[in-house]
């Protein structure tokens, strides 16, 4: 099917190549011939039609004509010479009439004047070769030469039109001025005035949807290393969730949602529900469209920011309904730069970043304090343990004291960290003429992480051409190859270092790393020989010194081909096809010397060391065809598009595990002795398809009254066979009030637009075969009479899309010629038919099945503010600010989510799950997905150092009960956003960008895990020594220091989460053009960006627990030749 479609798309595109071969010039050589045959020949050559009254040509004398590559006007003038006829070109028709019918022209002397001039880029001043010059509504009369100069002769009063790809049209009336200097404005600079929806480009002024458009340069300025964080700075409703676990790990993928979550996690996905972040936002990821085709989040994070032309965030239904089932979480449209014609231009960009680990949130004890704390915590009290007698404990203590006294005070935190230097070179070459333009880009980027040996290196190359055989046809092909190699640090989890005791030495007397630093005996309270177990403390640095690795490699090839065919000036047919193939391999080798195998059974010593190999192949084919209509008729402006698209994605994963490596040197999987014990190779193939047809229209009347409407009918393979297709739609209205006559007198207001939209969009983010009854073949399902297939679950063939209905209203208010622009927005999103598990009586043979049941709402407001605070010739200051607030509410839930709460209670209280002190999310109607669930606490009783709990019924108790858990606070901030300032002075530019949030709450896990529940055998937060209850009367935050029982989740640790971060400082200098031209440059700019410099928070908590955060400084040099 896909192939069939591809063929059609290509055929349709190619079909009218022949129609395009008309030329604009005429070559004629006739001794004596009739006027009629001359006209016929001209028609043949140019495609222009002739129009005249029937009898007009009768009795005209024959003509003698000799033309070579003459322009149409020249040809016509020559052929009508002495015929008493005149011509007039209207669109593609030449009207021939008697001269006496045009008295005015007859009477006026024709005054051809010769004019010359030069065409240049408005912003850069570069001259532009190959610019087309034509008479308005007439034919082309010339082009600029390679120096951008032109020389033409035209009638005075003619309107000349200069057109050039990538630039706005420029019109000028020929006056007596014979020396013109034409400046063309690049369309780039106009970008903030249009919205790119991926299917249409609509003037922002006439658009009722909610969209934010950002240029690649703006984004790069803010954060050259992290595109997603940069987007967040411009629109806080695009929320990159804090990843407290993975900090600034270059290999970690962020979690993102736009305007809140719209999907619930699956119950089978228990690990996800119960993870510390509580909500797996993979379900709520927006769709990323790169040059018209959907790509993965991974692809976006690996994108070369220099290649980005613009990023558009589409948020409400009016903007996203054409994306149908992919739109519920918003759509991010990314376009890359297209080559610009002109002489060969080379630009080169170099970046050097320094990333330094940020450990300011860590406060651990030093060696002496740590040992003192251990003593206080009773670690050397023989009465508290059966694993040691008092003499042994004393020996242990003095051995450690000896270390402390001899000066061992290892700062473990910094041991596996480094300052990482990232380098990036990218080159872009572009050139060509009006007909054929090309661009070639190359990138080399190494991005080491702040943990030793962790990195992510990206290499990419791309080629991009556009072929424009006539003004009607445009072919574009873009091919890119990207190789990304990632390495996870063999030094392990950062939290291991945080927990290491400072009195442990790293090396022995010889300076060699010690593997087993210490061990202790633990009473497991089991009977028999297993009662006392030895636990080892391994040196994590030793792991890093081994040959172990954990790497991934991804090779991706993308080819996108498109044909634009202008059927008429207002009607364009466009067809696109893209192919995205990627292959990822993962290799994880654990050295046989690793601590993992330290206490391996003595009969299995030859099975030490392991290797896991995984391979994933993904192929996505995406094709679409659209018919666009773009026309102004009187006061009415139409921008309509009708189209259809198909997407097919197939991925094929395989993995195997092996073990038994003889030594640390032979790391190839070929050296493995056996497959991993009790394991079998694994694999999975999944396929997803989608097809849809859509209409989207933007209409405006007098630029005042605006209407947007879109409709999409779409089918997806993921849905039940009974509900495979669904309609999506949206509509929006707007009013440009400032264009009304009554507003003309209000001088202060330069812009006032009111708009509102509503619509329905969907999402399909769940496993592909949920709607079918599937039989699974597991190789372990072997019965003595053959392989067995077992049914996996009940496939609900009525399963359908979850639909999100959105309402959005907004105002754009510009004051003082738009020096101040304020844009408030309000939205309400109601997701109906959430796909959730429904519990069944087990006697049906199934315990749950999937059904569309449950509603969730997101409501919020956003505010955008731009102020051009000061502006003069040399100096300007721009201030922008934004603010967002979102409230999420579970409106209706299925029965199984309610019973899931009981399972979560069990999980919470099960000591094996180690989640007793972590707030876990529950699902209750009326509550939010960001609610923090805990038992209410009144603090510590000064009398006895015990925590006082407030039970559900309002009574007080010292006993923590899981049944008293309730929502105690909401994690969603009252508001969050960014503030930034841009200051330009001559060739200098400085910008600052702050992020803030306030009014939300957070659960301070550090206070629980690292202070109250801290295991005294490991290093702990320094607050452990003060603020603890010791004697009656102590007013403290923490409970009795001698109370070693586990602290369960309580509201005591819920703290206000107010935050101010200086996310970015940017500095740039553009070298003076005159200066650099002498040394061969066109442009030369140096910039410096500092990211994540400063942070102040109302909550003091360890951040980046598995991988630390980093601060960075990037210096870049941008040169074009």
């Amino acid at each position, binding site marked *: 099917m896909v192939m069939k479609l591809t063929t059609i798309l290509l055929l349709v595109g190619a079909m009218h190549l022949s129609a395009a071969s008309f030329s604009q010039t005429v070559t004629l050589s006739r001794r004596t011939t009739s006027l009629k045959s001359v006209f016929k020949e001209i028609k043949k050559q140019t495609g222009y039609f002739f129009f005249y009254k029937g009898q007009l040509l009768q009795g005209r004398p024959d003509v003698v004509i000799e033309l070579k590559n003459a322009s149409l006007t020249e040809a016509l003038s020559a052929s009508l010479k002495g015929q008493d006829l005149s011509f007039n070109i209207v669109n593609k028709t030449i009207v021939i009439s008697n001269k006496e019918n045009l008295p005015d022209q007859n009477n006026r002397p024709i005054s051809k004047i010769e004019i010359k001039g030069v065409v240049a880029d408005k912003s850069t001043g570069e001259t532009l070769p190959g610019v087309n010059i034509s008479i308005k509504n007439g034919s082309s009369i010339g082009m600029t030469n390679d120096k951008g100069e032109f020389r033409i002769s035209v009638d005075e009063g003619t309107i000349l039109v200069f057109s050039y790809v990538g630039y706005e049209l420029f019109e000028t009336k020929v006056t007596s001025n014979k020396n013109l200097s034409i400046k063309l404005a690049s369309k780039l600079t106009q970008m903030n005035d249009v919205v790119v929806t991926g299917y249409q480009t609509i003037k922002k002024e006439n658009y009722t949807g909610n969209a934010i458009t950002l240029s690649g340069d703006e984004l790069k300025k803010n954060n050259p290393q992290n595109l997603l964080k940069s987007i967040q700075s411009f629109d806080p409703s695009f929320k990159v969730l804090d990843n407290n676990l993975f900090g600034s790990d270059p290999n970690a993928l962020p979690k993102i949602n736009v305007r809140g979550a719209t999907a619930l996690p699956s119950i089978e996905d228990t690990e996800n529900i119960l993870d510390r972040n509580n909500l797996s936002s993979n379900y709520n990821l927006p769709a990323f469209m790169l040059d018209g085709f959907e790509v993965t989040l991974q692809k976006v994070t690996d994108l070369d920011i220099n290649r980005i032309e613009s990023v558009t965030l589409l948020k409400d239904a009016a903007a996203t309904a054409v994306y149908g089932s992919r739109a519920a979480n918003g759509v991010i449209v990314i376009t890359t730069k297209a080559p610009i014609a002109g002489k060969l231009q080379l630009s080169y960009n170099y970046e050097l970043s320094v990333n330094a680990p940020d450990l300011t949130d860590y406060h651990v004890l030093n060696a002496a304090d740590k040992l003192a704390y251990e003593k206080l915590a009773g670690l050397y009290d023989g009465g508290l343990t059966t694993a040691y007698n008092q003499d042994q404990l004393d020996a242990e203590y003095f051995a450690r004291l000896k270390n402390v006294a001899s000066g061992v005070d290892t700062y473990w935190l910094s041991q596996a960290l480094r300052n990482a230097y990232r380098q990036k070179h990218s080159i872009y070459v572009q050139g060509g003429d009006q007909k054929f333009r090309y661009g070639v880009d190359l990138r080399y980027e190494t991005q080491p992480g702040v943990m030793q040996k962790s990195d992510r290196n990206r290499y990419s190359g791309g080629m991009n051409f556009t072929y424009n055989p006539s003004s009607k046809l445009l072919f574009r092909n873009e091919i890119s190859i990207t190789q990304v190699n990632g390495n996870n640090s063999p030094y392990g989890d950062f939290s291991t270092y945080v927990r290491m005791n400072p009195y442990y030495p790293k090396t022995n007397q010889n300076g060699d790393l010690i593997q087993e630093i210490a061990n202790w005996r633990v009473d497991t309270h089991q009977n028999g020989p297993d009662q006392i177990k030895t636990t080892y403390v391994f040196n994590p640095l030793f792991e890093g010194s081994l040959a172990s690795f954990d790497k991934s490699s991804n090779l991706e090839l993308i080819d996108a081909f498109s044909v634009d065919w202008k059927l008429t000036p207002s009607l364009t047919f466009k067809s696109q096809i893209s192919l995205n193939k990627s292959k990822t391999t993962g290799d994880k080798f654990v050295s046989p010397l690793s601590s993992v195998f330290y206490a391996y059974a003595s009969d299995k010593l030859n099975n030490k060391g392991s290797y896991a190999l995984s391979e994933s192949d993904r192929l996505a084919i995406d094709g679409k065809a659209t018919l666009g209509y773009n026309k102004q008729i009187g006061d009415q402006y139409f921008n309509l598009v009708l189209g259809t698209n198909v997407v097919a994605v197939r991925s094929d994963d395989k993995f195997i595990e092996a073990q038994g490596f003889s030594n640390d040197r032979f790391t190839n999987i070929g050296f493995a002795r056996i497959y991993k014990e009790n394991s079998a190779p694994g694999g999975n193939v999944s*396929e997803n398809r989608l*097809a849809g047809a859509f209409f989207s229209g933007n209409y405006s009347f007098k630029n005042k009254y605006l209407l947007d409407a879109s409709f999409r009918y779409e089918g997806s393979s993921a849905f039940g066979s009974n509900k495979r297709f669904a309609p999506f739609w949206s509509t929006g209205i707007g009013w440009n009030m400032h264009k009304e006559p009554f507003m003309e007198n209000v001088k202060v207001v330069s812009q006032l637009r009111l708009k509102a939209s509503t619509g329905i969009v969907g999402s399909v983010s769940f496993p592909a075969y949920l709607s079918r009854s*599937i039989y699974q073949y597991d190789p372990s399902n072997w019965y003595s009479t053959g392989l067995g297939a077992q*049914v996996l679950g009940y496939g609900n063939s009525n399963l359908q899309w979850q639909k999100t209905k959105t309402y959005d209203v907004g105002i754009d208010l510009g004051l003082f010629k738009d020096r101040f622009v304020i844009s408030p927005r309000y939205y309400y999103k109601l997701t109906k038919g959430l796909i959730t598990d429904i519990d069944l009586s*087990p006697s*049906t*043979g199934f*315990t749950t099945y999937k059904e569309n049941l449950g509603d969730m709402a997101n409501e919020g407001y956003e505010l955008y503010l731009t102020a051009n605070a000061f502006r003069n010739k040399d100096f300007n200051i721009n201030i922008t600010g934004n603010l967002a607030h979102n409230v999420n509410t579970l409106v209706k839930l299925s029965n199984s989510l309610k019973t899931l709460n009981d399972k979560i209670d069990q999980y919470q209280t099960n000591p094996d799950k180690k989640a007793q002190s972590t707030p876990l999310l529950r699902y209750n109607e009326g509550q939010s997905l960001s609610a923090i669930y805990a038992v209410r606490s009144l603090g510590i009783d000064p009398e006895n150092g015990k925590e006082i709990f407030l039970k559900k019924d309002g009574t007080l108790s010292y006993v923590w009960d899981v049944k008293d858990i309730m929502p105690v606070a909401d994690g969603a901030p009252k508001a969050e956003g960014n503030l930034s300032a841009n200051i330009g002075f001559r060739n200098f530019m400085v910008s600052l960008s702050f992020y803030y949030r306030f009014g939300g709450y957070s659960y301070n896990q550090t206070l629980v895990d690292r202070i109250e529940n801290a295991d005294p055998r490991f290093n702990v937060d320094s607050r452990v020594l003060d603020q603890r209850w010791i004697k009656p009367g102590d007013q403290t935050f923490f409970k009795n220091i001698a109370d070693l029982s586990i602290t369960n989740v309580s509201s005591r640790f819920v703290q206000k989460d107010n935050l101010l971060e200086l996310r970015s400082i940017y500095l740039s200098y553009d070298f003076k053009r005159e200066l650099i031209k002498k040394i061969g440059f066109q442009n030369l700019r140096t910039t410096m960006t500092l990211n994540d410099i400063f942070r102040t928070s109302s909550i003091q908590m360890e951040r980046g627990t598995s991988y630390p955060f980093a601060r960075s400084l990037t210096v870049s040099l941008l040169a074009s030749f």
Partner: protein
Amino acid sequence: MKKYIFILFTLIAFSSCKKFLDIQPESEVSKEELFTTEEGFKEALNGAYVGFASTNLYGGNLTFSNLDIMAQNYQFSDGNYQRIAAFDYTLPSFVDKINTIWTSSYKSIGNVNQILEVIDERKGLFRDHNYEIIKGEALALRAYMHFDLLRMFGTSFKNNPSFKAMPYVTTVSTKTTPYSTVSEIMDKVIADLQQAKTLLKTIDPIIPGTYVVGYPKGEKTTELKNGSLFLQNRRHRMNYYAVVGELARVYLYKSDNANALSSAKEVIESLKFPWTIKEDFFNADVAKRDRIFYNEILFGWFIPKSQDQLIGLFSRDNPDYSATADQINAIYNLGTVGADDWRYKQWFRIVKSAGNTDRFYLQKYLVNSSPIENLHPLVAPALRLSEMYMIAAEASFDTNPGVAVDYFNTLRTHRGIGASLSAGISKSDFINELEGEYRKEFYGESQNFFMHKRLNLNIITTTGLIYQPSDKLFVFPLPVDEQAYRN
């Protein structure tokens, strides 16, 4: 022209759309796809057996777990096990296990029903007698599982046949099936078994004399000789004699002695299942030892995956389940007739312990580690020839005590017990003797509990504590989820 191209394009795109969106998964098979071939039906049936033989059901919970504990076969120091042995149905881990049994049973019944729902309309797909075999076995499995659920979650037929016990599920749907009474379920079980019997009667490959039961590596056996793997190892599947044997068991539960006797006799008189000979049972070479009376098994679940669990339960140092020496000596009547009982001599490993009482570890399921393999594969016995003898004995006692005592004595002779009962024994003494024999024979096989329930017998612990028979003891509580989510 241009318009037509576009219309044409749109038409082509949409006409094939439905098909385009209909993806057949590759690493799995959709239900519709599976049941389009005979192979698919076979795989679905094998899959059903895998489910029944899983550790949640007969490869664990229903063969050597709580039912066996409640029959007072072991002695525990662990508090939780003690509570199970004391019929404490409030113990959370016990409740969990009961819920697992319920859920897994109906899940496996569902697997069978998926087959039965479509098999008749696809009759044309099948070669030879595979239609009859698959349908017959599927019906028999459905009945077998429901009957065991009834023996756990229903009242006994004797006590309260009109108790609304549980649903007898025959369809695949998210709609719940209404509850049936004990006697209704019995009727449905019998109906399914009778239908299975009819289907398998003439065509089951186990019936002809050419099918010779024996150890896999035995010289005479033909159990692994069939060209089709699907038709080998009939005794690992619901073969004809298994259906008849199960009928005997069900009729006896219903106190229908005449039918119970005729069914049991049909199995006995087929002479298909030879008694195990002493040389095999006592073979000094562990590789050649029959630990389980393999040849006497009419039907057993193939459970290699339970091996690890069995090691944990019975054979590792300090296993989960073990009995005291006194307990085993009492069960096997060491003081009276049991001194030479083969089972006593072979099934237990005596672990001497200084200061503490000696303990007996069960050896029945012991699997030799490779390369020395057992004489037989690891199976969970479901129906045995010995049970047929005991059913025949119990069913014929009222009408013909002499014959009944003969059946009983025959069984005992093949267990090494020389002393025989006399025909003049009273009914209650006879039942008492039978109960003792059930306990010996089915140690670690969970049938003893059901016998107590069927006949309302006291349950007596090793410490002499007597539990009076009552529904509180014998009826498992229904899972809360079952009640909560009925529709």
